[in-house]
């Protein structure tokens, strides 16, 4: 997640990371991590979730990495609703295939 300021709100954080901020904490799938009371704090939340916050001062941007709190890539087996575009620029929601078995295969031109 690329950001140009650290005072983002909980909704922006959820949209960028998939971790929803709820009364019980930061939640993804069935996993919830308690947060400090009070207003949403990006740095504290990132620390609790094991997310890296990397700063490039010359360009005034930060990159917020994925969670590492469990030591595995996946925290839950629930597939995220990935939204990617096709050749025509149309958004495709992975969740549109709910009800079918899906095999996702990555490739690259390089």
């Amino acid at each position, binding site marked *: *997640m*690329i950001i140009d300021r650290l005072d983002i709100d909980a909704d922006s954080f959820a949209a960028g990371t*998939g971790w929803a901020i709820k009364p019980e904490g930061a939640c993804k799938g069935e996993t919830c991590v308690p947060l400090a009371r009070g207003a949403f704090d990006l740095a504290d939340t990132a620390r609790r979730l*094991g*997310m*890296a*916050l*990397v700063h*490039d001062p*010359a*360009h005034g*941007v*930060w*990159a*917020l*990495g*994925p*969670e*590492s709190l*469990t*030591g*595995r*890539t*996946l*925290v*839950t*087996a*629930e*597939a*995220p609703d*990935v939204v*990617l*575009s*096709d*050749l025509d*620029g149309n958004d*495709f929601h*992975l*969740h549109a*295939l*709910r*009800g*079918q*078995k*899906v*095999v*996702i*295969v*990555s*490739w*690259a*031109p*390089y």
Partner: protein
Amino acid sequence: MEIVTVALDTAGVEAARPWIEAAGAEHPSLIDQAHVTDELFGFVNIPNGVWIDEDGVLVRPAEPAWPPRETNDKKYADIPADTPQRMKDMLAEARKIVTDSDGYVAAVRDWVEHGARSRFTLSPDEVVARSHPRPPEHARAAAAFELAQHLWRRGHRDDAPRWFRKAHRLHPDNWTYKRQAWAFADPLQGPTELYDSDWLSDIRAIGAENYYPHDPW
């Protein structure tokens, strides 16, 4: 069952277009310009794949997902004599890469037929436990790689490599991070002044048989 292909390329749609159009694919053929599926599923090389059941639950985590293709012996049988030596050396290593597309396709077919009763179907806990390790340094690598891509897409092409290099140092067995950056510097992913590694050197270092680590199907 639906197959969805995802092109991982920071260069975006136009880099992937010729290949998708040549394939004439009828399945969803998507472009992941920001490599978000690397992060979300744990793709560390291509081709990697995941399986998702009818309820939207992963039943196989990211792993090598070889499509049916010619055998290495046939694919690399007729290399023109005037091929540059470096390319010949790369092809020689590629020929040694171990893949099992027959096993992979048979496993997919078994899952499609038997669903949750397939011996290849994993429980949610198994899927999570078998997903790639992500220690804190890999999370930092992902952030560095995202920053590198951001700078590259914004036209700061001279500033991106140091973040690519950081990602490579923090997660050295992530071939997607490396191949993406190498390809920007040299389409053949050879040695450059920008990076202290290249495809041929790295695959020789690990052994081509370890390029796609995976238990037998």
